[in-house]
């Protein structure tokens, strides 16, 4: 009983804290810059923050994950300076920011990512089309035999519905249809990678930066097109069908320390870190 109380208390505390940390104080010098959102981007943002803090003494950048949805909710509620998102904000969300803060959202693409399709190392599947992926994840294809594999039930893994990767996949691959009920969801791409690496009949999706220990298979836009593997060239050119922008969002035009940090991220050094972590630099217009 007591233990459960403690859990509830903690949960309540977290929610209260989340609700309570509105109001941003201005005028203070070197107030910590808070960056919150996408789990996919946590590693990247962390590296940016570390390097930036090393070079700019006195500035502190605090990075937390939780999912793009979490970051966007925090931006709406005034709980963060910068929101990390691995999907574009919806119009309804932008409207909520404008309503709460009286300022438009500023969208800044900071890196490119490809959503990789993972299979087990021993899987005979060499490539997959977007239509096949859709059929698998909406439950219309349930056996590997139907797409040229062994006679074996497909075990698809997905991310939890608070992840930007989930929303990207739902919109881009499923054409906004619902995932089948049998799809198993796991917290974090690392958990998906782990699960796929243990099960020869499985398939999963997630960020390319995570793709170790399993095989990322090339994706075909349709049956007649060539399979394209995710790489710097194919993602930047848009040839790889499952690529996306990773964004920073701020309320209004950022200023001061936040502006300086974002400029640095978009500069040479920030974009080089992108590549080191396994993402792709944004194409400068």
């Amino acid at each position: 009983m007591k233990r459960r109380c403690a859990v509830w208390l903690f949960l309540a505390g977290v929610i209260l804290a989340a609700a309570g940390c509105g109001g941003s104080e201005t005028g203070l010098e070197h107030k910590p810059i808070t960056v919150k959102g996408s789990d996919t981007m946590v590693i990247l943002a962390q590296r940016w923050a570390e390097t930036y803090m090393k070079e700019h003494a006195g500035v502190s950048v605090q990075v937390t994950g939780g999912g793009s949805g979490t970051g966007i909710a925090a931006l709406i509620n005034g709980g963060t300076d910068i929101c990390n998102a691995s999907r574009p904000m919806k119009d309804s969300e932008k409207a909520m920011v404008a309503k709460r803060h009286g300022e438009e959202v500023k969208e800044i693409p900071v890196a490119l990512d490809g959503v990789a399709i993972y299979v087990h190392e021993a899987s005979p599947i060499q490539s997959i089309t977007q239509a096949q992926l859709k059929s698998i994840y909406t439950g219309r294809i349930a056996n590997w035999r139907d797409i040229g594999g062994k006679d074996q039930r497909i075990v698809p893994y997905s991310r939890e519905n608070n992840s930007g990767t989930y929303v990207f996949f739902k919109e881009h691959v499923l054409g906004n249809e619902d995932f089948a009920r049998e799809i198993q969801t796991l917290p974090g791409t690392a958990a998906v990678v782990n699960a796929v690496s243990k099960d020869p009949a499985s398939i999963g999706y997630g960020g390319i930066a995570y793709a170790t220990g399993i095989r990322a298979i090339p994706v075909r836009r349709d049956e007649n097109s060539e399979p394209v593997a995710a790489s710097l060239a194919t993602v930047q050119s848009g040839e790889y069908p499952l690529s996306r922008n990773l964004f920073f969002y701020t309320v209004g035009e950022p200023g001061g320390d936040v502006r300086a940090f974002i400029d640095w991220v978009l500069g040479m050094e920030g974009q080089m870190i992108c590549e080191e972590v396994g993402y792709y630099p944004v194409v400068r217009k």
Partner: protein
Amino acid sequence: MTVPALPKLAQTGILGDRLAALVIKGSAFLTIVSLILIFVFIGKEALPVLTSAEIRQEANLSNLLLPQAPRAGAAPEFTWQPISEIPKYSILPLFAGTLKVTVIAVLIAIPLAVGAALYTSEFAHPWVREIIKPCIEILAGIPSVVVGFFCLMVIAGWLQSSFGFTYRLNALTAGIGLSLAVIPIVYTVAEDAFSSVPQTFREGSIAMGASSWQTASRVVLPAGMPGVLAACVLGFGRAIGETMIVLMASGNAAVLSWSPVDSVRTFSATIAAELGEVVQGSPHYHVLFFLGAFLFILTFAINLMGRWWIGRLQRKLQGAS
């Protein structure tokens, strides 16, 4: 005659006593107050599902309890799909999933834990007991996220390769992991119950010519029964509310089925996975609190019923002895 030193000493003693009593009383009431505050908070956030017209357009009791068509023209079904063009908030698959995992965990944990408790209190050599008891209690100290990860990486693979399950992560895997969290609780309480059975009961039984197994199973076990039941209720409560283990090991697919090797999604895992993301005040947000309130009431009712039953049994046993 005057004894000036004594009253002063006594006075400070009394003051200290009062202060201590106040602190202890305060901390006892703090638990009750926080319990009530939490319930009020959850209830307040859950209530719009029943009262607010705006929220009820998307999420209302009939949505939550009755089947819903996933898209226009399709057959209605029980689905949990909150991120969708037509959000679907059927709580039945979650309820069934929670129950499935909990029952599996309890079925595994109770026989093991009660058996172990009976062994350590009745049969084990004192030094064996001194090893087993702390070991089982240490099990309670392992963070549940570690147990969950162990299930995901080791137990799931082992079960699949031994039995050939289609889904690596399923109710059974999560139930086994969950039983690791339940065993120490049931064991500790049951062991205490057996140890507090008066020694005269055992002596009497052996004097009548019963073997030590007969003594343990026919005298000590029934005499400790109220304690064992209390242990089971506590264990059930622990299992139904546990989050990390099921989040990592159950696969989290909200499937409604009878099979113990299908993937399941529980209330607690749903709340943990989704509450971080929702926009405050949205229907999804209030539905999650509704789930929380439901879980709260469910465990509260189980505890209450358990306690009532145990009290009755205790009175019956005392009357009989």
